[in-house]
């Protein structure tokens, strides 16, 4: 078994919480993102992405987490 440690675990694309397991993937604007729960995906679509679109896309180009 390969042990994943916190530095390898994903963070929710909306709220930023560490997701040790069972995060769910969603397609958004052609990108595959990981969220901790359905509500975070909804808030990402309706608030976070529209508000910070430029910064999010710029961060993704640099492979950074926004």
């Amino acid at each position: 078994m390969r042990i994943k440690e916190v530095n390898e675990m994903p963070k929710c694309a909306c709220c930023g919480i560490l997701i040790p397991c069972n995060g769910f993937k969603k397609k958004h604007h052609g990108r595959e993102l990981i969220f901790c729960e359905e509500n975070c995906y909804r808030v990402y679509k309706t608030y976070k992405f529209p508000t910070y679109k430029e910064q999010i896309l710029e961060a993704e180009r640099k492979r950074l987490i926004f």
Partner: protein
Amino acid sequence: MQEKVSQFKTDPITIEVIKNFLVTTCREMGIAMMHASYSPMFNEALDFSCVIFDSKPEMIAQAEFCPAQIGAIRHTVKWCIKEVNPQNLNDGDVVLTNDPYRGGCHLPEFLVVKPCFYNGEIIAYTANIAHMTDVGGMAPACFGTQQNIFQEGLRLPPVKIYINDKENEDIFKTVCSNVRTPKNSYGDLKAMIGSLYLAEQRIKELVEKYGIDVFQQATEDIKNVSERKMREEISKMPDGEWESDGFLEDDGVVPDKMYKIKVRIILRGDEIIVDYTGSSRQALGPPNQTFGVTASATYNAIFHLLGTEIDFNEGCYRPITIIAPPGSFVNVNYPGACVGGNSDTHPTTVNTLMYAFSKILPERISAMDGGTCGCIAIGGVHPDTEEPFAHLHLDGVGWGGRVDHDGNDSVFVKNGNCGNTPVEVYESRYPVLIEEYMLQEGSAGAGKYRGGYGTRRKVKFLADTIVSAHTNYHVLKPQGVFWGKAASNAQLKFRCGDSTEFRTSKEQFNAISLGKFINLTLHSGDELVWISPGGGGYGDSLERDPTLVLKDFIEERITLREVREDYGVVIDPEKRAVNMEKTTELRRRMRDAHQRG
């Protein structure tokens, strides 16, 4: 007339009975821990929280313990169980973790979770989170100016500390061999686990009485009732966006660098989004908040403002979404240090949120409180027992004034709900003598309703002792609201050797910060004085009832100069009476001068 149809399947009386039974069980868990534990952090400070989750797992009950932990535990329990996987849990297992990056608060806070089985299936989880005094690392009692998690101490991912009702000795040995006070840690862990068994027994009694179907339906309804009430409260506020910035004065590592907490509150119908985008990057030192702490601070502020009639469980958290950018001051990335985020950044975050809400709910907010837990950690070898000791001392601060009341004096900041260490316990268990402990004159911010008073405590060390601290408001001041004035600063000073002068950590030890330092060596006979900040004032101090000003003067809370300069009140000190005529005239002149200036 049309009859209102309930949207809940359980009858309201049964919901109330089951809800109150579960909350009482959480309280009973806490009392059991208090009586069975070894450390003053447990049995005096009460720095722990007890909760019950259903099988989903979602929180269904909590008691009035530590707000800093309650918000985080919602995430830690859920992710801990998911990571371990319920299929790998058996009756009699207990899972332990203290990983701050997995939703926890900070390293000293240990979480234990136990599944509750009924007829072979998990029907609930009992859990508690508690502050262990020492977790190893470079400083006794953990607090100081560490720069990464490895310096802070032992970090445990979710592991089974009990398997089939038996101690997993490997884990106990690992914990006890990595801390300075293994006897205390062992006893405290056993107290935590004991309370889980107690709660499990109570849940089984409840299910025996009502049946599993009623229990499960009622717990769903309990959450839904809270969610509905919370959404109703949020709906009463206007839609819109409000912003506020708060600052922490330094991290104890980089000199004089302030850290910003940027808050944007978005109200949309019956939901709240709290967005921390724009906050500072994570600090090199330990005041960073984990996601769990930021979540706790957010819920803490919102429940202070909205939650008077709402039962706290998963339901009331649902309408609140938090956005905390990873790698920022409010969501530290591995391996960033974070022990101080839960003690000093949390209250700063709550104060910042209160300011943002002051534009919507001016009658419900308070001015800033003293904003620090006053964490002073001591350690060494006790001369009586020749065994290592470690202790984290907490102290109260002044709370901010409110719309119709003065702030509380010397109460632990909003995140902790903790007690201080009583003088008798402090002196009997550790080699110290408490020479002074009193309210600090003049520490409260003036206002129509003034802030509460901080305290002054002088400690004499009776053996060589290592001292570390993580305190706040030495440079910045707790601010007032609506023209209320700021409170006084914190002070932490030392008198060493034959000197008669008390000097700051910068003057005495060349420390980088006045309030955050690590492993300073004090010798037998040296003294430390800690003055905690007061709370900010609410409203114009010239509108304060002069008789209340007189009362503060008689109680020696303020000087005659402050009576006159801060409140515009003229008192005859011999007659101990207010001269109303001269007061009215003085206040008129002060208002004129203020308008001109």
